[in-house]
């Protein structure tokens, strides 16, 4: 028993050596801070004021306050709308559609394929903050490209962030994030051998049937992982919305990550901000479990 364990340890030594830097970094930059946030969420720690000088444990006070916070429901609802709009409908469905189109074009050898591919990718390789400023430059009321363009055709300026703030941030995030799902799906589509489709075509299956019976089932495991990844990334979106609306107007685009930031670093209530971060972490963990179960069940 011990001998075999030792043998397995020896066998796995290389893996352990390879994994430990990653494990160490993860512990340093994720597990450590996460634990600290958990501890901090039970205190009234603040950046300034009397609570900064004398932080003390307050038990579950922050949690009871959070669940009684009338704004928190709004923030959760915003996050759900944002995730459904930009991650599930936008990035996931649009990314799949784009991948199918590009794959089709590639198989047919269309010339413009690479051009389209590159332009979608360009949105993705931009740092998020630059993508944010790009869209600010687009949507800005006074000097934004959209309103300047409208004024040239004699149409009045539209207050994009005022009349449809959530839609504006969703569009910006779809633009930014679609390339990721497209890339993954495109990779997966390329692994599907062409003869499957040829056989189906010989059997008289139309395009929809070929997609439904062959493409979709083959994509399912990768789809689950992609959905998990975009959902979690979107749920935690922070920089893009901060650059565009900073959660406004009146909490209309305040998502959970921004709310945690605003409580910790604008209201300077670090304990309360940590509480929100912990709740967010728990929700993300929940997503991960659900999606991973789903992907395993189908695989």
């Amino acid at each position, binding site marked *: 028993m011990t001998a075999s364990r030792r043998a397995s340890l020896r066998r796995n030594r290389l893996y352990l050596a390879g994994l430990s830097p990653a494990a160490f970094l993860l512990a340093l*930059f*994720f597990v*450590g*801070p*996460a634990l*600290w*946030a958990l*501890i*901090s969420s039970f*205190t009234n*720690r*603040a*950046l*300034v*004021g*009397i609570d*900064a*000088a004398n*932080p*003390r*444990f307050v038990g579950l006070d922050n949690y009871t*306050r959070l669940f009684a*916070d*009338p*704004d928190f429901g709004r923030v959760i609802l915003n996050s759900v709308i944002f995730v459904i709009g930009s991650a599930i409908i936008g990035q996931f469905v649009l990314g799949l559609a784009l991948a199918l189109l590009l794959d089709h074009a590639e198989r047919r050898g269309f010339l413009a394929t690479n051009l389209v591919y590159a332009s979608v990718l360009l949105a993705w390789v931009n740092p998020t903050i630059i993508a944010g400023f790009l869209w*600010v430059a687009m949507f*800005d*009321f*006074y000097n934004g490209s959209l309103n300047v363009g409208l004024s040239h055709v004699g149409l009045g300026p539209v*207050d994009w*962030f*005022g009349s449809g*703030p959530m839609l504006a941030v969703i569009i910006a995030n779809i633009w930014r994030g679609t390339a990721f799902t497209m890339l993954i799906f495109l990779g997966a589509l390329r692994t599907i051998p062409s003869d499957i489709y040829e056989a189906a075509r010989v059997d008289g299956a139309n395009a929809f049937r070929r997609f439904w019976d062959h493409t979709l089932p083959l994509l399912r495991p990768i789809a689950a992982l992609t959905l998990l990844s975009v959902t979690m*990334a979107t749920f*935690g*979106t*922070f*920089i893009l919305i901060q650059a565009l*609306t*900073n*959660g*406004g*107007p*009146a*909490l209309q685009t305040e998502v959970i*990550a921004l709310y*945690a930031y605003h409580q*910790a*670093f*604008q*209201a*300077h209530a*670090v304990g309360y*901000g*940590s509480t929100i*971060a*912990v709740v*967010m*972490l728990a929700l*993300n963990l929940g997503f991960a479990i659900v999606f991973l179960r789903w992907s395993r069940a189908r695989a």
Partner: protein
Amino acid sequence: MDEVVRQIMTRRRFLQVAVASTVVVACSPSATGSSAPTQAGSSPAGGSGGAPASGSAISGTVNVTYPDEAGFKPKYVEQAAAALKSQYSGVDVKIDLQKIGDDDFYTKLLLRLDSGDVPDVIHVGGSLIGELSDAGYIEPLDTYLAAWEDWKQYPKAVQDGVSYNGKTWAIPYGLDMRWLYYRKDDLQKAGLAADWQPANVQGILDAAAAVKSKDSGVLPYALYAGPAGSSGTADHAFVPLLWAFGGELQDQSGKWIGDSPATKKVMAYYAKAYGDGLSPKEIITATKPWTAMREKLGNGGLALLFEGGWVYGGWAAKDKAATEQNVGYLLHPTESGGPSFTIGGPGTCWYITAKSKNKQAAWEFIKAVNSAEIVGKLNAEDPHPVARADAAEVPEFKSSKYLVDSTKALEKAKFTIPSPEYQKVIQAIQTATARVASGEIGADEAAKRYTDDLKQAVGADKVTTL
């Protein structure tokens, strides 16, 4: 339990960085980097620390950090540093000028103060004295002031404005006051007199409606609301309106007043300003909306704006003659037409940090940067009433009618409360005004929700309604 807290405290340096990254990490699995503050050079302090050591040689490095987006201060800060260095050969001054907004600077500074890697001299708003002092971040200046002859030049009201819990914590250079600015040309086009004067607070909305009815593309009125308006939402909009309608922020016992008849009237005023399109919605959606609003009032694109007295300097610097001809300034009217007023404040002040290792040299720097000459010239350039009386005799200051008017207006000033909770109350005000300005809820409902916002901010036991 206390033991655990103590352990947390000893690990502050690490944890401070950790909390910054936690929120970021928790926010986004794909996020990289942390928002830890930039750590400027730590202070290798020598020289005499602690109590004032008159007569003994002063030496060591003074680390000064201050924000300035407008660019008026650097040459005076450099001048003070040079004066100090030539006076004491052993003293060096390291200046960390941050060209960012006050809010961002403050957050960065707090993280730095919390970490223990502290500068010696900091420069932030005097309204923050309460919370900074409660946190133990700043040093009382009373022992230094006792030996400083010039302190007598500061009027009692100014000295009181930088006092908290019986101690003096900061040195102000220029005081805050605000004006109701109006464009004479825009109002005339709307059929109003060039020397327009509102009979009461409703008169502002009436003038704005007159401008709007001309449909000339001129924005009628900028009433700050929401978090985007920063502290202007409170100091340049909600608070003066509350006072104009006979309300107060706090009652006699120090409880913050939520819903009240005056609060309802303020919210109704907001509902009218935004509901009738007198104030543009972009104020609550744009970032730093004051930049656009100030610019527009300066060039005639906006007719009415209640703003800081210092804003006038930007317009005058661009075109002095046109500004004097077209921009009028008035005190804030009240509901009944009773005595008009302005909002006063201690302005941005100089502080010594509690953890400074070189307090005596830090104090010498603060003295140098607050000389009558520098205070007079700086305030003439970046127009504020001077904090020390003798600075008003500096020719550059004395020769400006605008500055003389501003200084005189301070006699009609009401001051905001130097409470450590005020910053939290400002956030409640931002949330509450955003709701009504965005049209999400009506005025009465908004006043009720303001009570909830206050309770969230300062605790239910410190809030009352009238």
